[in-house]
């Protein structure tokens, strides 16, 4: 705790931004490892990763002060702010156009995933990518 008491106000604000960004980065990493589908994972990486990077870059800009390096960090943060969501969007759209299967609770047995008691889904309509289901049955 001695580290925290020896900071001035600028560094405290920078620390707050950096730690908030780190929380979002850790959440994004957990989502990437735990979520069941490619679309869910690209959602986790596209949103939380960008927000965490933005918060960390803002914290670093506050820590550097008004210098030339701070301007460079702003440039990098603008690049990441544009590039990261566009990359995720292009990946997801490319996967969807090539009929990458969509994860649904019915297709993957909700009882096994969620630990619920088994239910009868045989009367329900098929959900999600119905073309794929038909080709698999045929």
């Amino acid at each position, binding site marked *: 705790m001695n*580290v925290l008491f020896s*900071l001035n106000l600028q*560094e405290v604000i*920078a*620390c707050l931004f*950096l*730690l908030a960004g*780190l929380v979002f*980065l*850790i959440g*994004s*990493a957990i989502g*990437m*490892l735990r979520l069941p589908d*490619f679309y869910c*994972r*690209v959602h986790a*990486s596209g949103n939380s*990763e*960008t927000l965490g*990077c933005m918060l*960390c*870059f803002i914290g*670093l800009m506050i*820590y*550097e002060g008004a210098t030339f*390096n701070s301007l*460079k*960090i702003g*440039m*990098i943060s603008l*690049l*990441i702010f*544009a*590039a*990261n969501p*566009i*990359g*995720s969007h*292009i*990946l997801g*759209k*490319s*996967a969807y*156009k*090539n009929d*990458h299967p969509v994860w649904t609770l019915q297709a993957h047995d909700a009882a096994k995933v969620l630990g619920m008691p088994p239910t009868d889904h045989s009367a329900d309509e098929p959900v999600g990518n119905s073309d794929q289901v038909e080709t698999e049955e045929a």
Partner: protein
Amino acid sequence: MSTILTVILGVLIIIIVAMSQRLFNGPTSYDRMNALGVIGADVILALVIFDAADEGAYMYLDISIAYALLGFICSVILAKYLGGGKTI
């Protein structure tokens, strides 16, 4: 402040190692591309934090600008290649 930056660098390296698990045995190639994008963003952030933590460091910011540009172009081109060259 240097201690906190070092801790954040350590957590970033742990995140990168965890993403390499998704990179090496992701079920589809789209997962591998997604993990590559996340690793690229984390490496850029780690380079910038290293520049702020080390007083004698220089040129790390320029390298991370180039890394961000090349990572974005690489991601777009590989996504188009995985999609069979169609218009995305």
